[in-house]
């Protein structure tokens, strides 16, 4: 088994991903060349919709990290960051982007042309510490960029109250003011309403896409999860809606014709935490024993339905909810979400990725593991790895653990 491997995709739409990703990054470079302001921002916040509504170009350094992992650029980026003094114990997203902007960025042979330099740096806060720290380092690296430092409340989903929403709305207004001043572009509220409507439509489509995971055999697996790229980078655009519509239609057809991801589906698995971006082929590994990873937690943070009648408030609420949905900020809610998914998707076993690069998602997994066993009689196995740094992934240990786990699951189901 290799340390790094690409996934084998079965959906025709998932196979289009290379094109979809390339087009996005091409658009980012074109925007820069045409003088359209380019802003870097963390994922999972309402700034993306504001950017599209104001015809500004958003770029997501955090999303660039999986792209680097897919192209095998991370070891070189880590070397640069670690050479600067960034500890190997820090989040891989942080080390990768720091290494990239201080190393190969701007070089001749960077895949997809790399990232265009930011005119704006928008740090929303309210997420994890590494996400916030990335932007503090970017401020240092790009001193000419206009900087917005947001102040979003960090609050568990189940504890969000009106004053949290009020403060988040205030932050959105501050951001609009900043963008107007920095770029000279005014926000057209009708346009914003349209963008928010499109964003919500994407989320509705995503929910519908996820609902096909209920089918046996499943017409979608975690190996196709790259399709969420449009949810991360193109929220609020017709492009996202069109692409997700195509995905939905393909899944509908496969479900109606009972075409599964694998031919003889015996085990249905659940993945908790971020995938191993350098080894998406891992999701195909289980297939040798008739197992398929039906669902995962990570995509939930990008699909939050909105009340489109009040766009600004809707974006503020969405921003407040995104990070807690997948982090230790709301262990209780996350646990309920995992249990619900495992029930609905008829899961036989869960793979809990103990991710050295992401403490917020890893913390609380022990409680989730216990709840799965006690409430649903679903066994789980812990996989020690890292979503970015392949040095923290041992294929041999993975194989030993996972093979034994799948054998146990097959025996439990009377299939061995």
């Amino acid at each position, binding site marked *: 088994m290799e340390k790094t491997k690409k996934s084998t995709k079965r959906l025709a739409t998932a196979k289009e991903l290379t094109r979809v990703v390339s087009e996005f990054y091409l658009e980012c470079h074109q925007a820069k060349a045409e003088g359209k302001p380019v802003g870097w921002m963390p994922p999972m916040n309402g700034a993306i919709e504001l950017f599209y509504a104001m015809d500004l170009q958003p770029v997501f350094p955090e999303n660039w990290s999986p792209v680097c992992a897919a192209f095998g650029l991370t070891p070189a980026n880590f070397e640069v960051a670690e050479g600067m003094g960034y500890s190997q114990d820090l989040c891989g997203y942080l080390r990768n982007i720091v290494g990239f902007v201080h190393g190969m960025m701007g070089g001749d042979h960077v895949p997809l042309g790399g990232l265009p330099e930011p005119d704006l740096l928008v740090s929303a806060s309210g997420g994890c510490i590494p996400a916030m*720290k990335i932007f503090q380092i970017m401020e240092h690296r790009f001193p000419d960029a206009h900087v917005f*430092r947001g102040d979003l409340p960090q609050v*568990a989903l189940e504890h969000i109250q009106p004053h949290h929403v009020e403060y988040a709305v205030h932050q959105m207004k501050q951001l609009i003011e900043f963008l107007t001043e920095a770029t000279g572009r005014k926000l057209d509220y009708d346009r914003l309403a349209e963008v928010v409507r499109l964003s919500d439509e994407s989320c509705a489509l995503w929910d519908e896409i996820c609902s096909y995971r209920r089918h046996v055999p499943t017409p979608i697996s975690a190996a196709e999860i790259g399709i969420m790229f449009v949810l991360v980078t193109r929220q609020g655009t017709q492009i996202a809606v069109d692409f997700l519509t195509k995905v939905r239609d393909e899944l509908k057809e496969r479900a109606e014709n009972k075409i599964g991801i694998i031919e003889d589906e015996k085990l249905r698995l659940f993945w908790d935490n971020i995938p191993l971006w350098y080894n998406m082929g891992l999701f195909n590994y289980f297939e040798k024993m008739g197992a398929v990873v039906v669902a995962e937690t990570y995509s939930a943070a990008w699909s939050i339905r909105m009340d489109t009648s009040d766009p600004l408030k809707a974006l503020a609420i969405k921003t407040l909810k995104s990070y807690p949905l997948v982090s230790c900020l709301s262990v209780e809610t996350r646990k309920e979400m995992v249990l619900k998914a495992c029930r609905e998707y008829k899961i036989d076993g869960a793979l809990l990725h103990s991710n050295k690069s992401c*403490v917020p998602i890893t*913390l609380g997994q022990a409680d989730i593991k216990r709840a799965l066993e006690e409430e649903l009689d679903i066994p789980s196995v812990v996989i020690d790895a890292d979503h970015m740094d392949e040095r923290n992934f041992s294929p041999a240990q993975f194989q030993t653990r996972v093979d034994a786990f799948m054998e146990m699951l097959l025996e439990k189901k009377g299939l061995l």
Partner: protein
Amino acid sequence: MSSLSDYVSEFTRALENPKELIDDISRSGKKVVGYFCTYTPVELIHAAGAVPVRISGGPMRIDRADRLAPSFLCPYMRTALERALAGDFENLFGLIQGYTCDVACGMFNVWKGNIPLSFYHILSLPYGESPEAKLFFEKELVNLADRLSDHDMEVSDAALEQSLDIYGEIRRIMQWLYEKRYDGELPLSAREFYTVIRGIQVLPPERTEELLAGMVSSLESNAGGDARNPGGTPILLSGSLVEDMDIFDLIERSGGRIAADDLCTGFRHFDPPAGDGRQPIYRLIERYVAHFPCPSRQRARHRAPLLIDLAHRSGARGVVFLIQKFCTPHLTDIPILGRELKEAGLPSLVIEMEETGVMEGQTATRLQGFFEMMGD
């Protein structure tokens, strides 16, 4: 009159056995509320009639906590959980935490799911200082006060005023002692001095105030003995919590003198002592908004001039970063901070602490080399 070391002994005893301390306070009829981080508004907890006690971890081997938390978390959070699972905090009434870092917040939730206490509450803290940020903070504080009152812990303005006064006075005395340390006029070793600071985080403030007042009298009458200038290369010690008190001896034995610090078991705990405002809640808000910033709350470039200022005021000639292993906020800032300190003529050294402490021989060698490099 007691000697300075008698006072220090009481702080030492309070730290040696966190369980006994909490059990004793509980037996006296007071509720004990734990907290992890110095951004937790202890004045409000005290005004509600409870005794805020900072949760202790301390060097130890991990056994039970491994079942609930991964190994790549800071030793403080893991050892604190180990204690909790061993029953050390069974008489704690509740746990209150201000959201600072991801690990403290996540561990708060792990505790909530596994350590049965009557009260759990986490606050969202604003990063900004604008009027809207302060208004938001006010609502978070009022929300906490409401939740406390649901548990028969009413917070009145008068009680809050009193609590602000007592904590303000404690912090002012600590600052005075700290200044004396700058000037080499405090006859306490680093271990003794930082024992006092950690002690004031766990003892009831009324008792702390008495002890500190005693220390001041003792110093003023010279009953504490002559201030001894311990010599050594003056340094600024930067990090978060230091619970392994042996490290202080190690620094001094290796030829260093801690002239100033940037620790949350140090200067960050009592700077600023208090905030101004017409109403007690505003005094509270102003104090926490002006809190000497932890790297989880501020950028390295904002903190760099503050550290440089601390070093210059205290005469520190270099900085030792004493970091809890895996501490993302501190570790992330080190490259930028280190560079800015260097430009200001302050060399730095990074030492990481693990659950069982530091590797003594190796750390001593590194410290000696660092102090020698700085020269006398």
